[in-house]
């Protein structure tokens, strides 16, 4: 029972992180039609910013916030160099470009920071709650709380602000959106930056628990894709719910079947979903016109 609860909690923590990364991914997909394989690298960027800032004596919370900004700024550069020139091209070229960007960022980080994992100290490191035999480190609680707040904030931003409505309109019907004054080009820029910055925060948050290293983003990207496929490409609430589902699957597969095979199990679930319901399990099917 204790083991079950512990697995459940670990799954929720993972799920919260996946939701955050997938949220960025799905926003970008919705507005730009870009399947961004470089998404996880922005978590790496956020993680390393937090690492260096904490090392320089900056307080951890501030480091997290700056991680958000750094990921956003690098996101802007990447968008300008690797995606904006391809806006008229097909989506497959954009996807390949993002694969190239992903490898580039990983190699750059390996060159600049060495491939070894780095430990990030958070004031909450080492502290943990004991709930009837289940140990939860405070950092993990922080991850869940902040992720939840950010997901909620993004959701509210989309629902209740001018920017959010523009993003929704631009992803639903770009032509009509322009007719109502939505500057679709600027919106796609801003969405990309917001999307990768959210992932940057995820990186800064997970750093004290899982350490930071140049290749940390790859598995995050992959999981985020599974989440997004599960929740339906471009579906925001689907991404949040899907994140939790994938986190739980991974945690339980690791705990009860085999840690070695947990990724294979996650991707097998992905296969089944893709084949049976390619629109995602959380999206309603709509008729397709030829």
């Amino acid at each position: 029972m204790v083991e079950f609860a512990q697995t459940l909690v670990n799954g929720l923590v993972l799920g919260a992180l996946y939701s955050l990364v997938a949220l960025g991914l799905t926003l970008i997909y919705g507005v730009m039609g870009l399947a961004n394989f470089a998404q996880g690298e922005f978590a790496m960027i956020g993680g390393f910013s937090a690492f260096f800032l904490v090392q320089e004596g900056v307080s951890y919370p501030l480091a997290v916030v700056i991680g958000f900004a750094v990921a956003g700024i690098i996101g802007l550069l990447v968008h300008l160099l690797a995606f904006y020139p391809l806006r008229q091209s097909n989506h497959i070229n954009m996807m390949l470009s993002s694969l190239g960007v992903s490898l580039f960022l990983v190699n750059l980080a390996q060159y600049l920071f060495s491939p070894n994992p780095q430990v990030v100290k958070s004031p909450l490191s080492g502290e943990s709650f004991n709930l009837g035999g289940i140990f939860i480190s405070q950092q993990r609680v922080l991850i869940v709380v902040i992720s939840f707040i950010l997901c909620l904030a993004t959701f509210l931003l989309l629902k209740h602000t001018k920017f959010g409505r523009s993003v929704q309109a631009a992803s639903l019907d770009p032509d009509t959106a322009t007719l109502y004054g939505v500057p679709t080009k600027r919106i796609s820029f801003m969405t990309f930056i917001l999307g990768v910055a959210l992932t940057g925060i995820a990186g800064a948050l997970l750093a004290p628990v899982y350490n930071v290293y140049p290749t940390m983003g790859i598995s995050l990207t992959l999981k985020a894709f599974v989440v997004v496929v599960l929740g339906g490409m471009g579906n925001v609430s689907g991404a949040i719910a899907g994140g939790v589902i994938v986190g739980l699957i991974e945690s339980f597969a690791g705990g009860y079947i085999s840690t070695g095979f947990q990724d294979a199990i996650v991707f097998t679930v992905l296969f089944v979903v893709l084949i049976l319901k390619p629109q995602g399990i959380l999206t309603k099917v709509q008729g397709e016109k030829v």
Partner: protein
Amino acid sequence: MLEIQGLRSGYGDITVLQGVSLNVNSGEIVGILGANGVGKTTLLKTISNLIKTRAGTINYQGKNLTHVPPSKLLNLGIAHVPQGRNIFSKMTVAENLHVGLDNVKKRVNPQEQLDYALALFPKLKERWNQLGGTLSGGEQQMLAIARALVTKPSLLILDEPSMGLAPIIVRSVFNAVKKIAQDGTTILLVEQNAVAALNVIDRLYVMDMGRMVYESQEMNDNELEKIKEVYLGAG
């Protein structure tokens, strides 16, 4: 108010508009009638710059529109309701209306405009928090018009508002159009449904194969016969 001279445009290799000229005076409802496929929608999309002009000029209140991007038209007081009621299906009625309002907030009083649009289409108030995609066809058309209306346009461009609607709904939509014009908005209406359109418009153009083939100030059965000839090729 709107003056178009020798307009040509099209898609890829196909030139759809073969030199279209027309003008719209302030305060009137001008109808462009024609069967499907004659280039009516292309004409409107060219006016909004969703399709590039290949030749000819579009003047609106003395300003050349040829290079104004579609997203800036609202600032000039032009609102274009596209064909097929392109409402944002996964956004609520309220959100749809706010997309219209968002970009004109400096110019208009949002509450006033919302009240005006909802008075015209009270049904939308009942559906306020429903997703656009779940509305009936008629309600979607009303929403599309209302979404344009809240931007307080001087010129409202409507692309076939009757499409796919039952006759009784068409009538209520057109009554609303008439009311909008009476309140001082100039309207450019593109329609296939000539009978319904003739009831509301002040002046009419008939389009065929990318050209204006007929123009008239009279709205009676005689005109209908003429339009029928163009439509059904019986002439």
